[in-house]
């Protein structure tokens, strides 16, 4: 799976949780999930669990701490996919 494909799927998973549609319209790998997309921090685990299901990977609790931007999520998923 290419980085671009992962990015597209990540954005698709994030979309229902995003409260800032303007930021979503111009989303990039540098976009901050909590600060810019305004995803509720309490729902971040739901997002990450959807990543697990969508990509068939396991993400440890500690790994979630490194997910701040969309790019961080893409990198993490890429690393888990090997």
């Amino acid at each position, binding site marked *: 799976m290419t980085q671009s494909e992962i990015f597209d799927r990540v954005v698709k998973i994030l979309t229902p949780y995003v409260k800032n549609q303007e930021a979503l319209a111009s989303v990039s790998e540098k976009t901050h999930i*909590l*600060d810019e997309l305004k995803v*509720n*921090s*309490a*729902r*971040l*685990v*739901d997002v*990450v*669990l959807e990543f*697990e299901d969508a990509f068939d990977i*396991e*993400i*440890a*609790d*500690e790994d*979630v*701490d*490194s*997910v*701040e931007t969309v790019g961080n999520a893409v990198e993490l998923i890429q690393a888990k996919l090997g």
Partner: protein
Amino acid sequence: MALVLQRTLALAASPLTTLTVVLLLRVWLGLRVENRAEARRTWRALWRAREGPLLLCANHLTMIDSALIAWALAPPLWYVANFSALPWNVPERTHFASTWLQQVLAYLFKCLPIVRGGSRDEVADTLARFGWLVGRGEAGLIFPEGGRSRTGRVEVENAAWGVGRIVKSVPGCRVVCVYLRGEKQAEYSDLPARGDRLHVSLSTLEPKSDHAGLRGSRDVARQIAARLAEMECAHFAKHGGQSVREIPS
């Protein structure tokens, strides 16, 4: 080491800090806890009988809930003598530790300020330190919903998974759910209404999950929030107010 120093200094200041808080709550705000004696008996019994770490998890409606709960559960001088039972807190830094005076007071009140929604690493580090304290036998108080409930009700779906992560990371951790609400508290506010009469209830829980990792943490957090939601229903059934609603399974 830094936390041990903070505890030592907080203990030294505690006769003054705890009494000052109680005076502010009782005299300035005119608050009263209606079932204070019963709540205090329950908390003292739980504290004496504990065989492992205790984590208080409470509903969150005002900015001074931590102080209200501590006051509701024990008199100030009992905390001076049983200082580990005065819970550590993780308040929002922008509300409680943005000026130097606030930082000093937060330090002396056993607070570990946190920026919710801030750097994930910093949040994780603060919660890890909080978990370390609870693991060492210090009481901790955390609000599973993260911030004050915008609906005025416990929202199980908004349970912050970090609570579950803390519980899972502290072996033998027992959760004491605390539901506290004033009779005039219809929704969230900065402070309780002056002269309000508060009611508090406690319920213990040992949340467990068959899931590992994040799912397990979320599962545990939701169990705690669900218990608080049940306690909320019982509160309204007993004291009137908002209608009872179904608890999500």
